[in-house]
């Protein structure tokens, strides 16, 4: 059965390693923070200027001066720090962030990514995404594999304006986990109960099934 968004986040949380500084994008990526494996130390950065983000505040304790990049009220953990936007992107551009998780509208098989604009229709802007994908060495895309009109978002080629080129390393969707390899999308894990046929139908780009393919595990 296809995963829900929270379970996608849970699977991505398995990629967290002790000592990682992590930037989570808006949407599914934000949910990753709820699934940090016990016993490892992680610090979450939000590019608007905080390292060491905590949970949402208790009701009545919201502070207008304390938000994340999704404009949500947040709290901080012990050891947190605030800094300005130039310093924040020094962390990102300077490769000090160990893992970046972000959403996408389209990912083609060469590892490009598009997530900020639909010409003539919708322009939200790239926010910090272009800086993140241009510099991060460890980028995971978290998204639904199929859009609302039933079309695959894992493509041969992007049709939308790009956010970055040849930067995506791994993709986690409701159907599977993919790595970008020279030949295309390498399926390394499938969601419990989802058939390879379903995955193939939902992948417009070249799909290669790994010799070590396994079912996602959430033990």
């Amino acid at each position, binding site marked *: 059965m296809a995963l829900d968004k929270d379970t996608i986040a849970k699977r991505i949380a398995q990629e967290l390693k002790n000592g990682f500084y992590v930037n989570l994008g808006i949407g599914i990526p934000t949910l990753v923070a709820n699934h940090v494996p016990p016993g490892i130390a992680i610090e979450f950065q939000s590019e608007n200027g905080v390292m060491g983000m905590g949970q*949402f*505040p208790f009701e009545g304790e919201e502070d207008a001066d304390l938000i994340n990049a999704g404009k949500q009220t947040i709290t901080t953990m012990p050891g947190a720090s605030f800094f*300005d*936007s130039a310093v924040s992107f020094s962390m990102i551009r300077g490769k000090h962030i160990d893992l970046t998780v972000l959403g996408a509208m389209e990912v083609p098989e060469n590892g490009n990514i598009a997530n900020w604009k639909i010409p003539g229709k919708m322009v939200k802007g790239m926010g910090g995404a272009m800086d993140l994908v*241009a510099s991060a060495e460890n980028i995971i895309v978290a998204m639904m594999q199929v859009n609302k009109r039933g079309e695959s978002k894992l493509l041969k080629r992007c049709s939308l304006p790009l956010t*970055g080129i040849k930067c995506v390393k791994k993709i986690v969707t409701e159907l599977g986990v993919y790595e970008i390899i020279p030949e295309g999308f390498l399926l390394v894990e499938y969601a419990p109960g989802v058939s390879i046929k379903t995955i193939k139908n939902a992948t417009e780009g070249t799909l290669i099934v790994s010799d070590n393919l396994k079912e996602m595990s959430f033990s």
Partner: protein
Amino acid sequence: MINKEVRNVAAALEGVEDGMTLMLGGFGLCGIPENSIGALVEIGVKNLTCISNNAGVDDFGLGLLLQKKQIKKMIASYVGENAEFERQMLSGELEVELTPQGTLAERCRAAQAGIPAFYTPAGCGTEVAEGKETREFKGKMHVLETAYEADFSIVKAWKGDEAGNLIFKGTARNFNPAMCGAGKITIAEVEELVPAGSLDPNQIHIPGIFVNRIFQGAKFEKRIEQRTVRSK
């Protein structure tokens, strides 16, 4: 001590004219110079170019200037929260230049720091790099970005002193520090204005040399855009 205090927002905004370029601090509605924005609406200056990370929401922040069609061109990184913005942009009424957030911050900081141009990897291979010089450093492509030019920088801080020294609070810091001294004249509105000597020199976020005019804002609404809470 060089005193930067002006008596109110009107005195602070003296010299702002139609067609000028303004740099405005804030991220979303957090840390925006709301007193100054309110006064700009009242003054009614038009054909502004605004450099700001976001464009406010329909009825707060820079959205107020958009409603009155005072903005000719917007330079921002993310404008997803503003329906009127999207309408004006898609209809062609509003000129829009979208730029990566880190590049936006660094172009402000470059203006403050007298760096005319720098290379960054952000935006390479995308439409952001179109028409710009690109260059390889250590096997990776970078794009040449230039310092922003602005007539005024308008920022919001938590505390300030008469000498123009500023301290920001939490994530309301964001773009405000990098914009100080980036425009020809920098205006700072603060929640609390204290006498020189009241702030610890070791804990100043922005030295007063980067600020030309400072005043205590009459009222701060500090609206929350996304009130998210957890249950006890």
